[in-house]
């Protein structure tokens, strides 16, 4: 009898647990991104990407639902993003944090989530060592090293560049980017003859003095890194105004200087620009064409997607994968990390995967050239590098090789 009672108790308990686990559940997630200020456009793109994924894949969660709470990170620095994260985790009780455009946003949130064990999906923040700061973070965006090394190698081997000048916006991603470029370029026998810091990321500077200095060194190539946003058009225009193409200097860079949302505003100055990046909206894959079509149907034909939007889209795909793994139970970091380490997805940018070791993204990098077609500027893919990992972490350079938590 005793045994029977005990067994039935166990059975009842078990059914309660299983019933509970399969009950419809609302998952609250926090989205932190700039909604105001100079970077509001980036925040908007990211949010649009995330919302588009949610709209197109409503049925993917079965009976579970998802509620996204948006908080404005306002400034690139830490304090406001961190206060928002604390409020989201302790008051709203969100089970996952995502978004995060600027690296300092993500870095300031790291100690907080290490304490609360909340999983984080980074949709943008590109400073290379960020996933090393918390075991609860995965990143679906990019690192500066992925495109930087490849464009460096490409410039030396295929673009006939013997010497190059590297200009960069003077903050960590800029330094990451030229270090990566130098690594790739000098590894293939090129030589970087000058490195020019070109102001901070906050405001678009006048590029003329920097480019004049670059021109006076007579390099074959000018490598430029500027942050996504308004800098790119000024770069292309200054390059043209100083007649650097005629002087035999080729402008190259990571895809931040040909961001899709900025491209049409750059005019004919951009034609012939060679960049390496993980996404542009003219990729030929079926996923991308469907994505661009859905995006334009949702947000209007004049609002193209770009790599920040794709970051939001893929980030939300990762969030959905984590929630599917939790399937009605609480979304803990352990469940999310188990689901996301080695997670594979057919993204608009091509196949992507989260490296199970570094929790960072593995993705294709495309070498593309800007051309004019029917009055529009388009990007044409010239070469595809498959499944590129972050070189900095592979080589364990500086902070990339260290555990920072």
């Amino acid at each position, binding site marked *: 009898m005793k045994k029977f009672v005990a067994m039935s108790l166990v059975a009842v308990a078990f059914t309660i647990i299983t019933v509970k686990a399969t009950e419809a559940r609302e998952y609250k997630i926090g989205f932190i991104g700039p*909604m*105001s200020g100079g970077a*509001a456009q980036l925040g908007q793109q990211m*949010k649009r990407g995330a919302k588009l994924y949610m709209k197109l894949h409503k049925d993917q969660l079965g009976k579970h639902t998802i509620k996204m709470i*948006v*908080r*404005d990170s*306002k*400034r*690139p*620095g*830490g*304090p*406001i993003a*961190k*206060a*928002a994260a*604390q*409020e989201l*985790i*302790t*008051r*709203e009780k969100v089970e996952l944090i995502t978004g995060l455009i600027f*690296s*300092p946003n993500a*870095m*300031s949130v*790291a*100690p*907080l989530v*290490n*304490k*609360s064990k909340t999983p984080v999906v980074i949709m943008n923040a590109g*400073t290379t060592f960020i996933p090393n*700061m918390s075991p609860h973070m995965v990143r679906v965006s990019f690192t500066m090293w992925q495109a930087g090394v490849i464009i460096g190698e490409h410039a030396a081997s295929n673009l006939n560049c013997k010497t190059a000048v590297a200009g960069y916006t*003077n*903050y*960590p991603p800029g*330094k990451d980017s030229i270090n990566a470029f130098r690594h790739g370029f000098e590894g293939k026998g090129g030589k970087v003859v000058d490195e020019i810091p070109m102001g*901070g*990321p906050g405001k678009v500077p006048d590029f003329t003095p920097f480019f004049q200095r670059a021109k006076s060194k007579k390099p074959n190539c000018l490598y430029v890194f500027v942050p996504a946003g308004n800098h790119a058009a000024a770069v292309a225009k200054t390059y043209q105004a100083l007649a650097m193409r005629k002087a035999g200097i080729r402008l190259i860079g990571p895809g931040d200087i040909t961001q899709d949302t900025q491209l049409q505003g750059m005019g004919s100055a951009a034609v012939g620009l060679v960049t390496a990046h993980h996404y542009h909206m003219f990729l030929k894959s079926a996923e991308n064409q469907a994505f661009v079509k859905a995006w334009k149907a949702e947000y209007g034909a004049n609002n193209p997607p770009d790599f920040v939007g794709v970051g939001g889209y893929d980030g939300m795909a990762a969030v959905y994968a984590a929630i599917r793994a939790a399937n009605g139970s609480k979304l803990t970091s352990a469940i999310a990390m188990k689901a996301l380490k080695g997670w594979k997805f057919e993204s608009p940018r091509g196949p992507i995967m989260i490296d199970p070791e570094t929790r960072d993204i593995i993705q294709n990098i495309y070498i593309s050239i800007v051309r004019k077609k029917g009055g529009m500027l388009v990007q044409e893919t010239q070469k595809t590098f498959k499944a590129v990992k972050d070189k900095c972490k592979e080589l364990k350079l500086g902070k990339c090789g260290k555990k*920072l938590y």
Partner: protein
Amino acid sequence: MVPNHSSAAKAVNYLQTRHRFHWGEAIPWILAILVFYFLPGYRLLATQILVMIIFALSLDLIVGYAGIISLGHTAFFGTGAYITALLATNNIPDPIIGLIAAAFGAAILGFLSGWVLLRTTGLTLLVLTMAVTIMLAELANDFDEITGGFDGINFTNSDIFGLIELDQLWYSSSYIYVLIVLFLSFLFIRTIIYAPFGRMLIGIRENPRRMSAIGTPVHQRQVIVYVVSAAIAGIAGALWVQVQGNVTTEVYAFELSGDVLIMLILGGTGRLYGAFLGATVFKILENVTEQVLGTDQPYWQFAIGLVLILTVLFARRGLFGIFEDLGNKWKERGQ
């Protein structure tokens, strides 16, 4: 003192009692304690507000009392912040030592820059203070091997007196720690204000030439108050980064100098509690406007702008001035 109602006796009475604590002065501290218990989810924001109050108080000392207008007060805030953070990353993680070092470091910078800058006034002074801050911000950005630059550095402080951990999720000990430092700084500033030194500052604000004519070494006194203010701003900066465990070049941001000045104007300059009210209103509008309105669209800048315009148009002595007026009316009624 025989109580009578002649105006002369009233004035004497006012002068003899104005430095005494009024019961109303307990209100902000009681509110601060209530916030601790009832809004744990906003505790990091609340802690940030307390730090901003210290920062605004330090600015009030020079802007509101001594009449030195500065758009570069983040120079001291940031210096305090970096001193604390760099001590922590170089094996001196004690928060109290960090605070003291920050105060001294900022005071030294205040002395050096104040000695030179305070020879100018008005627009020149405004632009020069701004230039100092921007230069420091560029230095912090350039030496990013040490400072972490734009991305900043994360660090951890040791426990206070080896006992109390500054926790990184609920911020309960951090809140109390900052509240205590705020209380001490407040007492210190209040004492200065009601001391003869404070009266002299107001004299300088109202008419530096006349003060000079009656024998006050104006420049020297201005430098002294500038140094004191810098030290307190340094403490605020140190607390700011200790609570967050993270420092970026944003602590030198020129925008922050503007923000803190707006806080002061909102609350009311030259009236101690103006800093309390201004910093609280500003930070709440900045962080919670969208939540109250229930929207994802950013309205906070509009909200701050609107409140600021209404304040300068209709409450020239700041939001705290409104409370003063109400208090006076109530008193008159009572008589």
